[in-house]
């Protein structure tokens, strides 16, 4: 779609109006709407009062869809807690195709490698619009080559919760995979053969969708006990299917610390920087992911805290088994878990009351009265590419094709006092520090340092951090020098060719448009 664009505050050209999606405000800085003066009015939607029921179990999923009142042109949602083991999205889409429902807006919390069926459903006209945190595989290719008539909307986890609460993303029917569910719709992800841990993203959908269908392969006796993640008063129907996912693919998060020397070096430097910052002290809070060097950073943090007898306050975010172990060992008081990364987490959440399940709004919605990320001390984040302005791209690959997820990246970077990006200096011989990233997801203003195995670049706005890092003997380098050093080995790759056509919008957490995705030629 060719659109009129304006330049936003970081120099990216973004549309102010998109037919089919409405009007938008260009990004004006990460904290522009957070000075205490901005206000918003939630959109109102009529709610149907259901007749009292003692059993919400529908005869089958197809009938549940029929009873939900879902029609062509409406919006449906899913959570992505089943990760790459999810089979519900494709199951529902095939049913919609069979039932003749078309032109649906698909609004899952995210999509993964197991969702190639979405590309097929776009071609068949079942889906016409997409709102998501991320995409991979065939769907990313379909978006980048322009298969969607209306640009897709990429949101952060906090931004999605915000948009659902304010009504800019209105869900008609939420299909929520429920690893353990009772006849009245109480459900949880903490037990069952497809247990996936936290239901943090599903909680927001359950609260705001017009109609909620809990889809389960594990109907338990009423009442589900002892843990209920999403209570019955938010659920309209229960549909039973033979399987909602493949348990072996649900726990795809890294559970072992990497042995890759490059990743280990990055982790060592990232940890060195965190230690030098002086933030690892009693009462500190911490977040890191599950992939790449993240677990190794957590390992160094754990050893240091143990050695120094430091007790932190809490860890948040995607929670790994490693963090669950840190909780068990008393290194932190509590875990706030919006999304569980591996199987080890499920039992921790089920058994340990200090391992708390939180929803995506509590986690990262910048417009509520106190999301968790705002109090975060340290976050360690990965990236696909970074640039000399410290902007981070977690969406587009070196070939320009969409293959990542916004996730909680921009939320945590904006909230944390120290946000550290870890990235190998090159991937397959292609340098990771660019003059300008293809797609800005996290603005450089919210990034304090970029750590590669060849050195650490510190945001010039953080002179304080730079002196601490230099005093600690860390290899701090100007980002341009670091870039040149890497390019001396890799050379400078040819630019990917993009058309003018906008195939996606990247919404910042506050609802403004920070960047666009262009059609790859």
């Amino acid at each position, binding site marked *: 779609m060719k659109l009129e664009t304006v330049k936003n505050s970081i120099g990216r050209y973004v549309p102010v109006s998109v037919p089919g999606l409405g009007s938008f405000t260009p990004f004006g800085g990460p904290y522009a709407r957070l000075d205490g003066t901005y206000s918003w009015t939630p959109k109102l939607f009529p709610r149907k009062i259901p007749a009292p029921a003692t059993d919400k179990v529908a005869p089958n999923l197809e009938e549940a869809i029929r009873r939900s009142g879902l029609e062509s042109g409406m919006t449906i949602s899913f959570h992505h807690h089943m990760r790459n083991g999810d089979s519900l999205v494709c199951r529902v889409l095939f049913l919609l195709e069979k039932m003749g429902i078309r032109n649906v807006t698909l609004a899952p919390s995210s999509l993964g490698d197991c969702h190639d069926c979405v590309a097929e459903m776009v071609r068949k006209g079942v889906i016409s619009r997409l709102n998501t945190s991320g995409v991979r595989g065939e769907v990313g290719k379909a978006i980048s080559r322009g298969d969607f008539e209306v640009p897709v909307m990429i949101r952060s986890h906090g931004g999605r919760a915000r948009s659902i609460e304010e009504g800019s993303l209105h869900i008609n029917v939420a299909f929520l995979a429920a690893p353990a569910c009772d006849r009245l719709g109480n459900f949880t992800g903490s037990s069952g053969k497809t247990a996936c841990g936290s239901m943090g993203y599903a909680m927001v959908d359950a609260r705001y969708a017009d109609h909620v269908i809990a889809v389960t392969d594990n109907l338990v006796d009423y009442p589900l006990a002892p843990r209920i993640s999403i209570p019955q008063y938010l659920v309209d129907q229960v549909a039973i299917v033979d399987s909602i996912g493949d348990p072996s693919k649900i726990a795809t998060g890294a559970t072992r610390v990497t*042995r890759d*020397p*490059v990743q*280990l*070096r990055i982790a060592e430097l990232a940890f060195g920087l965190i230690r030098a910052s002086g933030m690892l002290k009693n009462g500190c809070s911490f977040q890191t992911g599950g992939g790449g060097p993240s677990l190794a950073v957590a390992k160094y943090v754990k050893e240091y805290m143990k050695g120094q007898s430091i007790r932190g306050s809490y860890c948040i975010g995607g929670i790994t088994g490693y963090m669950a172990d840190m909780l068990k060992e008393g290194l932190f008081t509590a875990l706030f878990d919006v999304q569980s990364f591996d199987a080890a987490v499920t039992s921790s959440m089920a058994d340990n009351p200090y391992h708390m399940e939180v929803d995506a709004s509590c986690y990262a919605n910048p417009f509520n009265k106190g999301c968790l990320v705002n109090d975060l001390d340290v976050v360690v984040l990965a990236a696909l590419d970074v640039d000399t302005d410290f902007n981070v791209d977690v969406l587009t690959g070196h070939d320009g094709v969409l293959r990542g997820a916004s996730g909680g990246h921009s939320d945590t970077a904006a909230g944390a006092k120290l946000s550290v990006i870890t990235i190998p200096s090159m991937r397959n011989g292609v340098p990771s520090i660019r003059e300008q990233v293809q797609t800005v997801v996290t603005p450089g203003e919210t990034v304090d340092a970029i750590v590669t*195995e*060849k050195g650490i670049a510190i945001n010039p706005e953080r002179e304080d951090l730079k002196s601490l890092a230099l005093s600690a003997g860390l290899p701090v380098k100007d980002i341009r020098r670091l870039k040149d*050093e890497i390019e*001396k*080995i890799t050379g400078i790759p040819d630019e990917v060719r993009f058309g003018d056509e906008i195939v996606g919008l990247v919404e910042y957490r506050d609802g403004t448009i920070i960047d666009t995705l262009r059609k790859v030629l």
Partner: protein
Amino acid sequence: MTAFLNRPRRSLLYIPGNNPGMIQNCAIYGSDGVLLDLEDSISITEKDAARKLVKYALRNLDFGTVERVVRINGRDTTFFEKDLEEIIPACPDAVRIPKIDSPDDVRAADEIISRLENENGIEPGSVRIHAMLETAKAIVGAPAIAESSPRILGLTIGGQDLAADLGIKITREGLEMLYAKSAVILAAKANGLLAFDTVYTDINDPEGLREQAAMSVSLGFSGKAAIHPSQIAVIHEAFTPEEKEVRKAERIVRGAREAEERHLGVVAVDGRMVDAPVVAQAIRTIELAKLAGMEVDVE
């Protein structure tokens, strides 16, 4: 304080000479030196490519403080001279020559290296030799090999080849290599050379490596080769002195300096007399402690 170690050589990491991804990361593994390999890890069909890549890397990459050693192919192969012809002009810090069986093998290499240094304007004698002893004959002849050329920096042992030559199996404990290792160390030390221990091949057994590295240190090796980056930290740990030992070394070094300042011939520390070799040991301990990042106070 006189530098005892000259430069750290606790760990030397083997890197296949045909792996650009690994070579370009030489500066980040954390080893004191790298052994860019043109020999056993490179198949016959890859020899030329590896040689060219290593030459290019030596000329263009920043290795930081990491010592650059190239393991070339032995004199018994057709690659020996070609390796030297291409590698020496790129100025490695040293070449590790495998299958050194006699002083003649060293002298042959020395001759070619001297000519190449001369032709390429390289300071004579600056490219050192690690002589790799891998046969029973070489072990028995170690003293003669050690004194065969001033270009030799150190002797090392080729565990796998030596085991094959002896017809024995290498065990986890490694006691079967004890005599050969000791012979190499003695020959090296008798000539003021360094002695480098062979690799521990099981990369999934850090405990076994820890025991072997501890043995390397106790026998008197200056360093140990590694075949995987994960082995480096374990090796360095073995070379890290005990806290108590470091504190004692601090007192000895301080005492020695005070004695020197006061022109006293004898040093007394903790009520005991210490002589020059003990001071030298203490200096080595201090340097190893510094390398391990321990806090040291000798002022």
